[in-house]
């Protein structure tokens, strides 16, 4: 960090506040057996030799887990791409598990073999997130490029549901599965019961860090996305409180008012926990602030975890925020972040039009409700 003093630049701290790598993500691979049209991270086919050659070995992942545990990581997410695509997934999983983390596994559930189940029964994740993108083979063909995967996903999810892990389903709605959204929720309820949550990705940015999906051509328009999220939210509230719920008398309540935020400034690198409490180790051995942004990184294989974590802030250079976002009246409800700005504009200080339109759509809804 710069040695600038308070006298010269009163708004700059003289030292970095305490950081601790409590929440980690291990991205085992950016390969996937499915070719989802909105995937942020998938690089290429499952058999890309160049990518396979550069992926960390099982031994390296297990060593990384040991270093992360020593450094204080408590929660660890194992993700991809599709982590089970790795033939050494079971070896990696067991080696990481033994270090002792609150461990979450993200998977598309289409590659759940007997061997994987034996490993996960012995070393069950604390949480599992299963992605589900359709309620039929036809939708899976349109979204993921593989209609046969639908049945395998259901069977895989059924097997994972036998584990003592807390399991939830995760979906992303694009043009190709928009009409199937209600059916996805009904399918989960029918197959797994009402206790299983279906989490919907709120905003889909363009693919990041070399991902190959043409997200822009398939994601919903921001206004459609907001409408979908809003009506889903209302429906879920109505399920909880019944028909007496009055949609017209909605009130928007800040969890933390803008005034409170100003009184309690949050010191961070990017305005979030990235690089302060959370990090990602990428498939090729880089320590990132988060899986979404590869602009700032440290070579964790060369330096070791502790040194890479320590040095990460020194490598961060953020440009000035663009004027439009800096003075926007709706900035307090905007879902923007450095990563989404970078994904959409190529500039971590840029104004992402897609997210901006989303925020304006939300603001219109809230203002309409306030007028009523």
């Amino acid at each position, binding site marked *: 960090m710069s040695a600038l003093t308070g006298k010269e630049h009163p708004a700059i701290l003289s030292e970095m506040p305490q950081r*601790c790598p*409590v929440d980690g993500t291990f991205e085992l691979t950016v390969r996937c057996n499915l070719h989802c049209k909105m995937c942020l991270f998938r690089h290429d086919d499952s058999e890309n030799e160049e990518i396979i050659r550069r992926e960390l070995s099982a031994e390296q992942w297990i060593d990384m887990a040991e270093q992360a*545990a020593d450094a*204080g*990581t*408590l929660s660890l997410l194992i993700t991809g791409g599709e982590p089970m695509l790795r033939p050494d997934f079971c070896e990696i999983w067991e080696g990481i*598990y033994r*270090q*002792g*983390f*609150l461990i979450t596994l993200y998977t598309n559930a289409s590659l759940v073999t007997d061997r994987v189940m034996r490993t996960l029964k*012995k*070393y*069950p994740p*604390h*949480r599992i997130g299963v992605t589900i993108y359709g309620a039929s083979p036809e939708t899976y063909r349109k979204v993921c490029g593989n209609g046969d995967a639908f049945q395998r996903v259901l069977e895989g999810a059924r097997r994972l549901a036998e584990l*003592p*892990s*807390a399991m939830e389903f995760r979906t992303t709605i694009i043009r190709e599965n928009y009409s199937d959204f209600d059916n996805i929720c009904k399918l989960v309820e029918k197959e797994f019961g009402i206790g299983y949550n279906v989490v919907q990705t709120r905003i889909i940015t363009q693919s990041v860090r070399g991902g190959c999906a043409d997200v822009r051509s398939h994601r919903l328009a921001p206004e459609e996305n907001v409408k979908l999220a809003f009506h889903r939210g209302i429906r879920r509230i109505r399920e909880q409180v019944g028909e007496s719920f009055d949609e017209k008398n909605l009130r928007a309540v800040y969890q933390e008012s803008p005034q409170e935020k100003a009184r309690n400034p949050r010191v961070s690198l990017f305005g979030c926990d990235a690089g302060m409490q959370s990090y990602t180790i990428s498939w090729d051995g880089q320590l990132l602030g988060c899986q979404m942004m590869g602009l700032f990184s440290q070579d964790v294989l060369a330096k070791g975890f502790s040194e890479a974590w320590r040095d990460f802030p020194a490598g961060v250079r953020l440009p000035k925020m663009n004027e439009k976002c800096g003075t926007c009246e709706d900035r307090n409800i905007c879902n923007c972040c450095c990563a989404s700005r970078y994904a959409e504009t190529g500039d971590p200080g840029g104004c992402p039009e897609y997210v901006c339109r989303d925020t304006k759509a939300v603001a219109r809804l809230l203002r309409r409700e306030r007028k009523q």
Partner: protein
Amino acid sequence: MHSRVPVFLGKREKMNHTETFQRKENYIHRTVAGQEVLISIGGNIANFNGYIRINESALCLWEKLSSPCTREELARTLTENYGLPEKEAEEDAESFLRELVENGMVIVKREEER
């Protein structure tokens, strides 16, 4: 998932002096941001899916429980390491053991089973 700080609630009746206690391997100890935690692992997450924060003296006893030991040995650990009076050490060790037994965290054996 949630964290849980153990509350030492002693019951009225005393435990059997001839019993030994040994921790089960369904928790892993970690130090996170200066705090000592026990993380539930394996099949135990069906009973408890989360982690427990423990203090320094609890960690001391937990480490002692890696091999079978009696209630008296645990009390002696507290006396030797923290200078607690004997009676207080016995009470603290007893209530700590009760917490562990109630939550299925230890194997209890009677002397004749040793």
